[in-house]
């Protein structure tokens, strides 16, 4: 093969399903009949750019004419590829060949590497047993997790008992609703507390300002959920929801409801700030819900629950979930049927992300 001025570029990393743009450029004195691009079977050609005539297949393209050659303008074509499947390997480099042919004979072959990375979540020492006691505050489900690989993930934790999801994400909106509702029915009690605090100057320091538009949005969201009846019974029971609906049907109380929302902003803000700490337990993981709690009413003794860890990357690729069967030792002596409340607590995170993947050498890659 003779020395010719041809070069190529492909983006240095991608997640599964992420579009990988590449381009190949050459000087105007390079004459060819066709350019033959081959991508490995695990990749797919999605598009070509600045090409006039080409035959495209899923894994190869034969380009016979690029857009007109203009003096002083680089000759080039672009191509978009992707790896549509999620691989088991955490890192992978696959060769893409670009052959320039004249009279059916290749005279230059360019090699580029499509490099795909993915994350993996693991459970370190999965919990085998958990005790359910009469003392609500003692019930806790600890987890030790490990993150390895590449790509920030969003993790959602679910618990099921007998196939039914019994965990709730602590949504700020629901949390606010619960507090608002309780604050109204326990108005007298709260008034007493307010008196203690109002005398204290420190309280003034802790008062915060929140964007009114945000509060309106939040109030609207709450109202919509109440109107549509989409409040989970884990947040408020059916009776409380019915009461709340009736209470809000009066226009005067609707105004009062708004007033309460405005008054409670400081508290809401605290929840949100704590979310900031709790939602990012480690550098590459964001929890969908800052806290996940198993909250359900179970009449019969429970013997087994299943934890499911579901995670996805920034492309929205969902990775195989992790299921942890856990034996439940139900030592409750009080009447069964009471509410079980058990927070799922991540005690330890091991974080081992890939660093500097741009420069990382991957097995099988011969690129300089």
């Amino acid at each position, binding site marked *: 093969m003779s020395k010719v001025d041809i070069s190529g570029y492909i*983006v*240095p*990393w991608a*997640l599964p399903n*992420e579009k990988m*743009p590449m*381009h190949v*450029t050459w000087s105007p004195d390079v004459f060819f009949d066709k350019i033959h691009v081959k991508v490995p079977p695990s990749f797919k050609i999605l*598009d*070509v*750019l*600045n*090409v*006039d*005539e080409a*035959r*495209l297949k899923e894994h190869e393209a034969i380009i016979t004419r690029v*857009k*007109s050659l*203009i003096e002083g*303008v*680089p000759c*080039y074509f*672009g191509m*978009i590829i992707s790896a549509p499947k999620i691989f088991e390997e955490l890192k992978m480099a696959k060769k893409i060949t670009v052959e320039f042919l004249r009279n059916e004979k290749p005279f230059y072959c360019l090699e580029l590497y499509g490099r795909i990375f993915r994350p993996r979540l693991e459970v370190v020492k999965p919990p085998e047993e958990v005790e359910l006691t009469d003392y609500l505050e003692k019930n806790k489900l600890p987890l030790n997790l490990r993150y390895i690989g*590449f*790509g*920030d993930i969003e993790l959602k934790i679910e618990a099921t008992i007998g196939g039914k999801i019994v965990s709730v994400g602590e949504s*700020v909106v629901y949390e606010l609703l619960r507090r608002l509702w*309780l*604050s109204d029915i*326990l108005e007298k*009690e*709260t008034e007493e*507390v307010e008196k*203690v605090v109002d005398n204290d100057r*420190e309280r003034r*320091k*802790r008062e*915060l300002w929140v964007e009114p538009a*945000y509060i309106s*949005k939040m109030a609207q969201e709450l109202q919509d959920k109440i109107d549509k009846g989409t409040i989970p019974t884990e947040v408020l029971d059916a009776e409380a929801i019915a009461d709340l609906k009736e209470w809000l049907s009066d226009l005067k109380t609707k105004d009062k409801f708004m007033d309460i929302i405005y008054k409670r902003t*400081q*508290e809401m*803000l*605290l*929840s949100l*700030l*704590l979310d*900031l*700490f709790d*939602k*990012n337990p480690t*550098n590459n993981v*964001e929890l969908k819900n800052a806290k996940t709690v198993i909250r359900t009413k179970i009449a019969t003794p429970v013997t087994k629950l299943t934890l499911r860890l579901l995670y996805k990357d*920034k*492309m929205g690729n969902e990775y195989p979930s992790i299921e942890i069967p856990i034996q439940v030792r139900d030592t409750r002596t009080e009447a069964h049927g009471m509410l079980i409340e058990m927070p799922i607590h991540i005690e330890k995170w091991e974080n081992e992300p890939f*660093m*500097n993947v*741009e420069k990382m050498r991957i097995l099988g890659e011969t690129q300089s």
Partner: protein
Amino acid sequence: MRNPSKKMPSPSDIEKVFEWINKVKKFFEPFKPEFRDMRINYRTSKSEISLALHISNSLKRRIAKVEIPAYQNFVVSEMIDESFSRVQSVWRFDHGKWILSPSILPASEKYLVKLKGEVPREILLNMVRIQPAQNRDQTPELDKYWLDSMIRDVDFIEQIYKKLEIDEVNLAVHVGVQRCFSTTFPKEMKEVLEASQRWTRAGYGRDRSEIQRAWSNLRKVTGASKIQVGDIIQAIYELTLGNIFAEYLLLDLPYSLGEIKREERFMGLFPEKMSVEACADLNLKQPFATGYLTFKKKEYMKKIEDFLSGLRK
């Protein structure tokens, strides 16, 4: 053989770009108009075209008035004479028309008039392909995102105008910042927040002894810490202002920094991410641009720490 890309601009797209320009050009015909330069700003969808006009003295006498309807709201932005001086106040806009009285023009016969108009967004999207990396590459010091932009079809650009420049092709990169705050804020802050939350929660319960315990816990924790909840909000607010955040960003040429915005789910509180615009100018000589946006996260976290220790003094 087939045209492989579904998104290639069509001849009708070219007509759309030229629609108002061709109409305007007809009104200038007595002055032998010639296209000189065309720029399209990808970010704002604005186009600017320069037309060279020859307005002889006899024409100045003969043509009393040129009236051009403002097709697609185009604007006459500038007029320059042959000494490169700007000719002031010769154009006026009246009842949807741009009006010029050639008789009031200065002695020059050669002029350059600049016209500004809009290019439909869908055509711009068909002209250029842009993509930033979905996920960062990281080192302990930096987060990096690759940037890729490319002209889809140089023929199309050539047909519009050989000297076409597409300015400020902009890519929005989402730079995550929440973890910078959550990992930098000292443990005592979390304690202040937790104590505050415990107390407010207790306030809505029936357990009077828990109210007392929570209150004394809050006093103890806030007494030990000089940082208040408001300080945390203040830190987040100030350190996510665009001009401050920009100091921690690097862009490879030919990219330059555009607008920086907060992306927030809870409006008015704190952003989850910062939306950073990287802009590149593309033209026929530089039909593609690759490079990196680098976020100096270690330095940024140091800034957060310094800010907080300033509050503690």
